[in-house]
């Protein structure tokens, strides 16, 4: 149970970064941390005590593997996370090029 709680704490760290910080880069980092916490939760759900990686090895059969389905899910989530992170960074760079600041308090004009 402890590991799930720590995972939740990690998610809350990311959420705090997204909500409380005013720097765009820190907001993006907060989102990345929250994303990592969710991926970690999936991997934790898949874990089984004493099991091996989900690959057919010489000794182990399918009964001694961790659950491979969340791993595949997390792989997809990582790819999408990469794409969204790159998009967010590109938008942040455009905002910096336009306003000269990363502070979201100063980015107020909607036109111009």
């Amino acid at each position, binding site marked *: 149970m402890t590991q799930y709680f720590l995972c939740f704490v990690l998610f809350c760290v990311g959420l705090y970064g997204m909500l409380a910080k005013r720097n765009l880069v820190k907001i993006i980092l907060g989102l990345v941390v929250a994303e990592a916490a969710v991926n970690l939760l999936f991997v934790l759900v898949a874990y089984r005590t004493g099991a091996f*990686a989900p*690959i057919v*090895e*010489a000794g182990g059969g399918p009964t001694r593997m961790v659950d491979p389905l969340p791993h595949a899910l997390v*792989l997809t989530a990582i790819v999408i996370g*990469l794409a969204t992170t*790159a998009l967010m*960074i*590109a938008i942040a*760079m455009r905002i*910096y*090029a*336009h*306003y*000269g600041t990363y502070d979201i308090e100063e980015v107020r004009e909607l036109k111009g």
Partner: protein
Amino acid sequence: MEKSEKPPLERREEAGMTVVVKTVTRLTVGLIFLYGWYIVVHGHLTPGGGFVGGIILALSFVHLTLAFGRDAAEATLPARVTGLVEGLGALLFVGIALLGFLGGVFFRNFLPKGEPFALFSAGIVPPANIAICLKVGAGLFSVFLALVFFRFDWERRK
């Protein structure tokens, strides 16, 4: 928006980080590159595979770019070559899948399966891993390059 504070002109020999970072990079980047290929080639035997190995390969080039600056990155692996490799990976993967029609089904294993747990085994899985590695590695590195080569207005004007 004030434009008075322009960043200093980037001189070619001073591009990148300090000499410590450059030396360590020169020593480690080959090892990272080889480790990426190891992960890719053993993808059907150990945890890892084309995706993870491709990420490691791309990270070795990212490492190079961060240490030596964007001019060195363009000299090592131009953005055009990255795009070509990415397309090649995608075509290779689709080609492997389409070759399965030789046996009648999409993605059918048309190569000999070989001995289990040997390096050359598992039919089409290692070639597919290599195709995925090219696609993912070149894709990730081109995303990075697109962000690195982004020029702000005051950089373009100088």
